[in-house]
């Protein structure tokens, strides 16, 4: 199962979804080949491996593709049995992990998108919307070290890449509005798999500025 040549990740450095997969692979200590895709010029391999969405990330394991980041993370947990487990062993907690990973996709991503695409007064309103979403996550976190159960897992992996964007855009007052979540961010970033897999906020800010300059 640990054949280096057998695992390829089609990725994009800036993608939060790709980062989720990188974190999961790093947590499990799986060696893989990372191939950077250019969204403006997708490789034939990407189009062949993800004909439905034509998007990264795609994990190709022994020639077979797995798509959709939360699905890939679960696949990684099931295909590589070494610790740490990325999902709880208890079925009820497993369900909670999936629910919260799904919540991040539906709410955090959508709220976040609105911020990157707006400016000025409108952006302030969108930031407030995101804070409301983060408060729900703050509630879920409570006094626990991680979002579900006692261990770092699927739900945390789903959310942590977004923290870099919050930092990049500053003035979000996450520490004040959601102190537990802010502490959770620091806790996650202490994990080598996480800090190694996420870009520096400065790079994200530069990337976004460049996009805006190019009218994207």
């Amino acid at each position: 199962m640990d054949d280096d040549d057998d695992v390829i990740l089609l990725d994009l450095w800036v993608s939060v979804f790709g980062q989720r997969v990188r974190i999961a692979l790093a947590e499990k200590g799986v060696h893989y080949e990372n191939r950077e895709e250019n969204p403006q010029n997708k490789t034939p391999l990407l189009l062949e491996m993800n004909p439905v969405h034509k998007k990264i990330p795609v994990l190709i394991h022994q020639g077979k593709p797995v798509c959709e980041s939360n699905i890939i993370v679960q696949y990684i947990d099931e295909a590589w049995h070494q610790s740490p487990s990325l999902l709880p062993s208890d079925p009820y907690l497993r369900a909670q992990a999936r629910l919260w990973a799904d919540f991040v996709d539906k709410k955090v991503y959508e709220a976040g998108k609105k911020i990157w695409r707006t400016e000025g007064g409108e952006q302030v309103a969108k930031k407030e919307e995101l804070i409301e979403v983060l408060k729900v996550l703050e509630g879920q976190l409570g006094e626990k070290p991680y979002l579900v159960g006692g261990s770092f897992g699927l739900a945390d992996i789903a959310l942590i890449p977004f923290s870099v964007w919050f930092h990049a855009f500053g003035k979000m007052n996450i520490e004040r509005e959601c102190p537990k979540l802010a502490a959770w961010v620091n806790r996650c970033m202490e994990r080598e798999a996480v800090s190694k897999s996420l870009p520096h906020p400065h790079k994200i800010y530069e990337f976004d500025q460049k996009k805006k300059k190019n009218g994207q």
Partner: protein
Amino acid sequence: MKSVHRKMTDEVKLYGFPGSPFGCRVETALKLKGIKYEFIQEDLSNKSADLLKYNPVHKKIPVLVHNGNPIAESVVIIEYIDDIWKEVPILPQDAYEKAQARFWAKFIDDKCIPAIYNSYGNVEAVAEATEPLQFLENELNVKGKKFFGGDNIGLVDICACYMAFWVGAAEEALGIKIMTKEKFPKLKKWCDSYINCQVVKDSLPPRESLVAYYKWRFGKAE
């Protein structure tokens, strides 16, 4: 954390609404495994205190409550049911096949259903509604089996109940054609096979009510 593992007498409640395809999914899964449950019908315009307690984040049905512990979101519920009740598996055992099943379930929810729903009362959107369906047609073609799950129904079949039943009712109600036999021969054949499964039949709402609902919701005034 309360233990929710199987007890001698499991208490299973399903909060739902009879016309909901998402509730139907869960009922099919429960019936497939022979799990006894109590169905609690919600009035969606006046949600019960229980529903709001069990699903405070989304406040939606279906919600499964197993021995007092709530789970929301139909696909998450089905995976949970499959985890706890091992007889008649709904998801494949193999990690790769499982990932594929999850992929198609998500595709149905993220792409197929919204595109189809969008076309009701919006004729220009019908062509767009058929695009995602082509991928499902291809999948059946490639698999070459009776169901998405192979010889027996699985997660993807259960999630696709919307296409098997709800779409036909909407087509009849609104005089539109989304899933034609010409364009989707395999999918149409699958619909027939799926609807004829006893556990599915037992989970579906009466067709006339659904047709009447679509006429009322999207039809033009006569």
